[in-house]
């Protein structure tokens, strides 16, 4: 099921990474929320995006996830997501 999600994902020592750069709406949201809704997913999760996903924030808050933009290279918006509930 996770493999059906759009975008790329991999695991590093700091947790799951999801790369949704280049995807058209609403695929980034589908990819991110699809990963977060996996039963064993408790974060932290790093998202690599090409724009700030303003429509994602209400959905993250509804699911108890906190987001923070972290500095990165030009052309990328990187978000750190942590579960708060």
């Amino acid at each position, binding site marked *: 099921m996770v493999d*059906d999600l759009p975008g790329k994902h991999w695991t590093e020592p700091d947790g799951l990474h999801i790369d949704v750069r280049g995807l058209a709406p609403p695929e980034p949201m589908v990819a991110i929320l699809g990963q977060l809704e996996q039963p064993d997913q408790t974060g932290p999760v790093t998202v690599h995006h090409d724009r700030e996903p303003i*429509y994602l924030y209400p959905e993250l808050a509804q699911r108890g996830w906190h987001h923070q933009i972290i500095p990165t290279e030009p052309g990328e918006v990187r978000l750190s997501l942590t579960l708060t509930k």
Partner: protein
Amino acid sequence: MSMPGAFLGGAKNRLLPASLPFRFFVAAAIFHILAWLVLFAGAADLSGFVGGSGAILAALHLLTLGVFALTAIGASYQLLPIATRQPLSRTWPARASFWVIMPGIPVLVFGMIDGGAMALTVGGVLVSLGLLVFAVLTADNLRRATSMPIVAAHGWGALLALLGVIVIGLALILDFDLGFLGDHQGMALLHMGLAVFGFMGLLVLGFSQVLIPMFVLSRALPPRYGWTHLGLTIAGLLAFGIGIALGDQRVITVAGVIGFLAGGVYVWLMRNALKSSMRKRLGDSFVLIKASWVFLLLGLLIGFGLVAGMDIPNGAALFGFVVLVGWMLSFLMGILQRIIPFLASMHVEGKSGRPPLLSDLTPAMPLKIHLICHFSAFALCSIGIVLDIDLAVQIGALVGFAGAVAFATFVAIVIRKLTSTAD
């Protein structure tokens, strides 16, 4: 500005001040109430309505201009920059468009009830000016679009249809006095077809490509089907226009077939989005949205039956009611109850420094009351039209009015939460 800050700035350009889209939504909620009230007043004329001035024409325009167009314009100003990745070039014309259209609608509608040429002309010009400002702003945004070509193409189609709606609408108003149109009723039909299936229909079809998968959390829809229903819709509208111009019933029948195929492709595409949905519960908004798709097909079937010469009791009025209230109003009410809390959530931070929860911004009771009233009103009025029972239409309109009040209450509650949380 730091790099994250720069991106934040870009996002904020795409996110308009809350007051901008919300003023359109509040006005739409108020015109929704007025539409049912005016329908109640003119209930005796609904079943046999085939055009002409009076309360039914007024109720029709309260719905199409007051509810549909204002909702579409408010949503487009906010959602189009997200889809095209381009901010609105300026926000003051968007505000100005509201302050021209909004007072123009009651003036126009008063003229339709009263039959006064001055009110019709002043209202028509004001509404047309506001719509033209919207068209120019939207065209400018679509011209700069760097993504979502399928949404942009639907947008261009909708704008072309809107220009046709404005020109024919103004011609119809002048024709009340001057009588220069050879076929006033035919032009009125074309005006309605372009408004509902062209302008509003293409906006709905285009935004559905993004909004429905976003709401149900499904994969992006295959664009080739989107291009197919765009092509079919445009072909159907062109055939309809040619059929009206030539007075050729066969061409109009072909337009009906093409229109039904366009609706079928769209509904099939939406059904596929639902089938691959990752959300288990879609809520009451999707009861409205799913029902709207059924009513779209039903409306197109009735329309096709009419042009094919079938004897449907009060078929013209039934067709209009099923398409306008069953399809378009159901769909927009379903979408509005999703995007109003969504937009509100993005504009405020709660005491915790995080956005308020969507569930906290969505009062369930008024929406439940609206849902029940909306479908009851639809059923009662439809029965009233088919069986020619004015009392059923009157009761239906009152029930619809109650539902519209409940919906306006929902909008008011969200705005109160928005302003109190922002404080």
